[in-house]
């Protein structure tokens, strides 16, 4: 390595620069992480509902789901969705008369895998948050003659969300870091893009350092947003 190229030229937006590619990669990371987070949130609400209000079988199902997904490495779940999804699609395609291997797009498999793993954490967060809503407030809603739906929309959902916000922030940080694992399926997100750049420039340290800095930046900015949101939504509960 004689003439070491200038770092700013490397990460810049010129013809030699990787800037545009890295920004696109970071965008893909955000897409995977946020869609995974949303899928997880939907699963989490259903899971918490099952754990709180479900009968014995539904509860056992939800307990099994959270126990398994919290005990199994995320990487295995990503493999399951990537290879399993592709197999399922190939089998369906064969039924429809299409021959050969049809792959599930890595982004879709990745977002689903991240969603299903984070769903277990979401479930616990929502369940804990619902438990923190004081029964008196729900009783008061009953007493005012609110029906089920109004009670859920006006009382239970906002209060649960307020208590859930700090926990949801933690889940988001985990999801963001987990999205880096989706790079193993070949999806060109931030980490995969830096791997490509590291390989072609032979500067792995510089580029993985840049990836680390970009991940730090994303997690710090989203942490700040969550902090502001937390303060906003707990205004009425704050002690003077």
């Amino acid at each position, binding site marked *: 390595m004689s003439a070491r190229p200038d770092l700013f030229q490397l990460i810049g937006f010129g013809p030699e620069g990787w800037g545009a590619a890295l920004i696109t990669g970071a965008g893909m990371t955000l897409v995977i992480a946020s869609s995974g987070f949303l899928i997880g949130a939907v699963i989490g609400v259903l899971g918490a509902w099952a754990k709180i209000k479900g009968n014995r079988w539904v509860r056992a199902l939800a307990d099994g789901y959270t126990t398994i997904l919290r005990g199994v*490495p995320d*990487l295995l779940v990503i*493999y*399951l969705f990537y290879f399993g999804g592709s197999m399922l699609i190939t089998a369906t395609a064969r039924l429809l008369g299409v021959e050969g291997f049809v792959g599930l797009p890595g982004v879709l498999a990745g977002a689903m895998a991240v969603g299903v793993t984070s769903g277990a954490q979401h479930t616990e967060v929502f369940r804990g948050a619902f438990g923190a809503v004081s029964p008196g407030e729900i009783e008061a809603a009953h007493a005012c003659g609110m029906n089920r739906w109004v009670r859920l929309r006006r009382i239970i959902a906002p209060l649960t969300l307020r208590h859930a916000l700090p926990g949801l922030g933690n889940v988001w*940080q985990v999801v963001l*870091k987990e999205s880096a694992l989706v790079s193993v399926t070949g999806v060109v997100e931030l*980490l995969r893009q830096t791997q490509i750049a590291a390989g072609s420039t032979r500067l*792995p340290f510089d580029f*993985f350092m840049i990836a*680390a800095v970009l991940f730090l930046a994303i997690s710090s900015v989203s942490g700040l947003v969550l902090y502001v949101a937390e303060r906003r939504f707990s205004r009425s509960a704050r002690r003077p």
Partner: protein
Amino acid sequence: MDIDFAFETFMALVGAVPLTIQLAVSAIFLGAFVAFGLAMMRLSGILPLALLARFYVFVFRGTPLLVQIFLIYYGLGQFPAVRHSFLWPLLREPYACAVLSLMLNTAAYSSEIIRGGLLSVPPGQVEAARAVGMPRLMILRRVILPLAIRQALPAYGNEMMSMVKATSLASIITLMEVTGVAARIISETYRVIEVFVVAGAIYLALNFTLSRLVLWAERALSPDKRRPASAAVPIAAATPASTGDA
């Protein structure tokens, strides 16, 4: 589900369990020392040290573990100084790099847990120990550490379990631990469900055992919460000192 294939897979994966355990145990064991050092730095009251520890925790908790592994495994070799140093035979090995990055990563998380445990020790207890004339190290050994460890144990147990799961990332830098073998079998046979079920069951069994061990340690460290062995002892027979705790 094909039972024969599942059994074959199970035998192949069980062969990889020792490597998974070895990775987890060495990372957790070495990481505990780094974590304790970091916690001490943060509580030292010396601003540069405390800031340094905070920065370390911020960086290692804010970036994905996989990036840290790549930085150490692929990144360090970029520098001729590293390639020519006496550490190179070690840093060239995927095993050493995996342990190193897992260790540095768990240290960041554990240091916060240990710090919380140390802060939870009531100042009165330390004061009392000082009042009876214990020297500083003895206070640490006999009063602070037992109380702090007991307090931090549940959270530390969770961290150990997530480390067991995190060893799976070592497969990406070619180490053939459980996930590595599972990925190989999946790509050879395309029988995802069986392999996932078997590998998942192995990780669940490992983590279940670990959680039992932590529970057992928790019980062993909290004799005050334990029910007295002979609950039928009449109150009059109990000494005044023991009734005071109830």
